[in-house]
């Protein structure tokens, strides 16, 4: 083995590297916690923990620090390398090995859930049924052909394509969709002509947007606020422009128009994921402790019905007791008992079992190690005592 290779190997298997990486991990986590005050939890997850380099703002200073992928990745390499290099099959080492195998799994699991986990919400009013959930922070432009009363033909264009300002041409659509302006966060108001806020130029020539004015807002990262996008989209058919519409989830109802003898609907809405099952909200409950407004319990009684008829049952979802079905887990997320409305959070995480496995391995490993040392210590003291006496 030549010298350079040995040096590289020694670097990656060294305990010094471990200690340095652990210290950097603490720094990253600390910075990522403080940054949540201004950035909010979602932005911090993306910028600090799911990145290679994070920028930490300390007052006016911008300090680059290694991000979660870098620290976690190097730690993973360090762990695996060290274990391959030093592997010994002995009882004494078994605890340490199990623990570190668990740490490896935990790091991999966190990476995968960052990549794979999808979070949707379902907002249902009592008595209503929903067969789709909505993405919390992603939006789509839905262009729906409603000519046939029996079904809707939907073309959904992700908001990210609108943001890029690209022209979208879809085989199902007899027109092109051209985004003229896009705002990641905006507020709409009825046109008064005397608004004090800076209003953006109104490009709308068709639909409700002609009567509204749009204000561009800075992006918000607060946990109780959402970014509500808005865009001006022009539809251009073979015979020229059909008009420019203002679209935004704030508009509520979709806007209708006719083209070529077909009826269309246009709406910018939260990205939908249709499900092979439906959930009907039977009853919401928001109990408080008597004489207070301290919440005691939030619960939703729902009816779960699958398309194939294999499931048709009542389920009670409440705090610490979610419903699991079809790879999704439904949690009680928010509630508006006054409006008899529940908001369920549906999470799909194909790697959900990895942390459980990792925990089992690590707990076993640490217990093993701890007991091994404790018994060793007590044994040693027992041997010492008679000698001292």
């Amino acid at each position: 083995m030549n010298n350079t290779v040995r040096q590289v190997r020694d670097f990656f298997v060294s305990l010094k590297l471990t200690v340095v990486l652990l210290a950097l991990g603490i720094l990253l986590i600390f910075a990522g916690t403080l940054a949540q005050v201004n950035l909010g939890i979602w932005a911090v997850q993306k910028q600090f923990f799911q990145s290679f380099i994070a920028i930490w703002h300390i007052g006016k200073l911008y300090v680059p620090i290694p991000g979660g992928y870098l620290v976690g990745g190097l730690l993973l390499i360090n762990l695996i390398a060290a274990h391959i290099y030093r592997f010994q099959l002995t009882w004494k080492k078994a605890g340490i090995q199990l623990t570190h195998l668990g740490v490896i799994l935990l790091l991999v699991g966190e990476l995968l859930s960052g990549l794979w986990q999808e979070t949707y919400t379902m907002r249902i009013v009592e008595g209503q049924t929903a067969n789709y959930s909505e993405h919390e922070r992603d939006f789509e432009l839905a262009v729906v052909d409603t000519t046939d009363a029996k079904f809707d033909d939907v073309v959904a264009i992700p908001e990210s394509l609108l943001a890029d300002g690209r022209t979208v041409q879809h085989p199902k659509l007899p027109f092109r969709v051209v985004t003229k302006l896009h705002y990641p966060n905006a507020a709409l108001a009825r046109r008064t002509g005397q608004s004090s806020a800076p209003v953006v130029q109104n490009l709308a020539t068709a639909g409700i947007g002609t009567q509204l004015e749009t204000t561009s807002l800075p992006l918000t990262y607060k946990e109780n606020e959402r970014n509500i996008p808005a865009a001006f989209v022009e539809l251009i058919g073979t015979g020229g422009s059909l008009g420019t519409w203002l679209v935004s989830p704030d508009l509520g109802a979709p806007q209708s128009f006719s083209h070529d003898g077909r009826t269309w609907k246009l709406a910018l809405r939260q990205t939908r994921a249709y499900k092979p099952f439906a959930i009907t909200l039977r009853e919401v409950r928001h109990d408080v402790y008597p004489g207070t407004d301290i919440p005691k319990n939030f619960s939703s009684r729902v009816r779960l019905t699958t398309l194939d008829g294999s499931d048709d049952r009542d389920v009670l979802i409440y705090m610490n007791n979610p419903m699991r079905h079809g790879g999704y887990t439904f949690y009680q997320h928010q509630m508006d008992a006054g409006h008899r409305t529940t908001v369920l959070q549906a999470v799909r995480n194909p790697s959900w079992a990895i942390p459980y496995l990792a925990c089992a391995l690590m707990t076993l490993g640490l217990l093993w190690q701890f007991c091994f040392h404790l018994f060793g210590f007590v044994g040693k003291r027992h041997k010492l005592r008679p000698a001292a006496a």
Partner: protein
Amino acid sequence: MKKILPFLALLLVVAMAGIKFRAPKNPGAFDVAGFSQLPLLHNGRLKPFDTVARTSLLQLQGEQRFNPSNAPKPSTMERLADGLSGKRKPAHRPIEWLLDVCFRTEVADTYQIFEIDNADVIALFNLKTEDGRDGKRFSFNQLAKGLGELDRQAKLAAQVESAARNAFQRGVTHLHANLVHYRRLQYALVAPTRPNFLGDLKNLQENVDAGIAAVQAKQAGQPHDAALAAAMIEIGEPFVDMANVSNFLVIPPSPGETDPTAWKTAGVALLETFRSKQVNFAALAYAAFAHAWRNDKPEQFNELVRLYRNDLEKRFQAEMKKTTVETRFNAASVFTSSFTIYAIAFFAALFSWMAWPETFGRIAFWLVIVAFALATAGIATRMWLEGRPPVTNLYSSALFIGWTAVALCLVLEWFYRNAIGSAAAGLVGFGTLIIADRLHLSGDTLEMMRAVLDSNFWLATHVVVVASGYSATFLAGFLALIYVFRGLFTTTLDKATADSLARMVYGIVCFATLFSFVGTILGGIWADQSWGRFWGWDPKENGALIIVIWNALILHARWGGMIKQRGLMCLAIGGNIATAWSWFGTNMLGVGLHSYGFTDAAFMALIGFALSQLIIIGLANLPLEKWRSFRT
């Protein structure tokens, strides 16, 4: 002498703590102790009036002591002198204050019990600090003229997000909330605007049919007995105020009621009279209490206590047992005794390193055991009262973290017998109880659990294990502090002691790693169960993770030979900062699902603590020839 001393010390502290376990005696002819055990439902929990009186005084004036004379606080020397000369007057009970607030408002309004820390808020009332008792406590009458302005300022402050309020706005909000609380107490049992409330109720009961008919006729515009209608309205209107103002549910469910939580405010119960035509028995009883208290009729009062208790005991036996125990628990103040004994134990352990190691070592160890037993009894009583695992809020976390650390210290002391375990136990026990005492100021510490935390299984596993991890990390840090101080400033840290301290710290760090790690992981599983994600980088989760990684870092640095004895001590002291950050710092950020215990005054204390630890780490890095123990 050397042999007897430990027994004497033990006897003394046991007597000191035990004296508070006696059944409370009444300071005068009134059976206020009996009244203080009566139950009511407040903040979702059945509790005795005694607890309401004590927590209200704590919340309003920052201490439980009731001082009707508005005299300045006597100094410790004065109190000692009074005590020795036998001139000590019987102390006034918090319940006497509550009785005055409820029944003799005009007197209670002269008690200086509203604590105002902010000079600008004091100026709002055209007052000066010297107008108040101890320079900061004012009576309701003193504040009365400025209440309108306070209302306006409180409304302005309410528009500012709570984390962004300045000291004045916080002061205004705090005082406003306290005045609302005071008003709720005034309207809890009788109408403070009606001096002869009992007479009103009797009048109402006698004329209920004719009176209701007269009022109905008046409303319908038909001929009626105008005098009677006016009298009824005059009596009935204060009921509406009582129902609107107070949130103390003092009236037990009616005998036929199946819902055990269907307690009512006195106002609501009295308004029901106009439907049921029968004045509520309990409301009538409280009006009679008011009559007896106002007119100085102790026999009546005491007879009422007996009758009302008997009636309640028939229906609420289990509940009455709890309120009685809670009253005794309040009076015994086990955590205060425990706190004092830990402090004495700490000093005894210090002495043992200088002289008479056997004697003082034994005293320290025994005292720690007494203090620990008291704390254990206290925590167990709280668990029984609440029906919950030990840690349910920030206050109980302080109690439990101290308790676990002391338990570990006792184990260490058992093995090493060098008073280091006792010293650390005294220090940690004392420190955590000071923290608990500060946290107690916010009021009743037996709170109901919010829905998201309402899971005894996870409270008993995740919370308990993670708190044990915190306390072990703290303990390692405090042992390291002892190492640094003994080594730097005394000559008592010989090689054997230093080595045994290093072994202790190492062992405790191993324990801390195991517990903080398993606890954090359990937290992840709970989060996965209730929020749908195993890990969300929430501040509290991050705080716990920092502790785990910090401990892992210490162990890896040690195994890799990167640190020796002093390095281990420095890193262990750093663990104190990590733990303090996770325990309190993360709650101060005001973000995240976990932030349930926001306390802003504690921020400076946290910064101060972190700085002090950094300074000690700096001291520990002084060259060895500056260490008195290692100088040759």
